[in-house]
């Protein structure tokens, strides 16, 4: 179980890294303003509504809880926490 958990986290970290390294490419490909699901270093679903992205991920037989999903903010947008 512990090994599976670590693998799950490593896969998530890898997809997170891919997302952040490719954010400009994602913007060029019209993903700005959308949530993007990334699995195995590829975008697998996207939409402005996260509920639709989650349903698409489920349709592919994947558990959305284990999939990296992030919002593509417009270039120049600053998020103040």
């Amino acid at each position, binding site marked *: 179980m512990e090994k599976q958990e670590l693998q799950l986290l490593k896969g998530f970290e890898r997809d997170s890294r891919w997302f952040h390294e490719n954010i400009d490419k994602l913007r060029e490909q019209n993903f700005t303003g959308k949530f993007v699901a990334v699995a195995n270093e590829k975008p697998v679903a996207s939409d402005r509504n996260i509920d639709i992205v989650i349903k698409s991920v489920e349709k592919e037989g994947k558990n959305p809880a284990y999939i990296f*999903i992030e919002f593509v*903010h417009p270039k120049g947008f600053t998020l103040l926490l």
Partner: protein
Amino acid sequence: MRIPLQVRDFAGGLRAMAQFLIKSEKPHLFGPIESIVDTGSPTTILGMPDMKRMRVSQIQLIDLESRKEPHAYGGGQLKTKILRDAKLRFGEHFECKMDVQIPVEEVTECTQPTILGVDFMEKNKFKLVFDPAKKEAYFESSE
């Protein structure tokens, strides 16, 4: 002990970010999370997108204790409940149990990420080393 963090250009600037697994039995919650380390936030708050990803319904939260005061969060206000003793696991490095705030009302703008707040550092006696110029960040035991 050190927990390595990632320094990433996210939503307008460099941020120290941490990925961890969150686990809770009641309500059932399990999955990896990406969080922004925010020393301006006293509490750790799960983002609404992460709540949705883990398919936590509002019905599952009924029995949880509510936090009395709302959080000012992303320009708005957010009501939360307290998830007691959630287990947070940071790779092979570290695991802890702590209370995590979880949002109970969906805000219009649902893009706010999960925040790893000062409560995490205080509870586990960590200091944050963040060097944006070198793009290096980590938590380190402060004892």
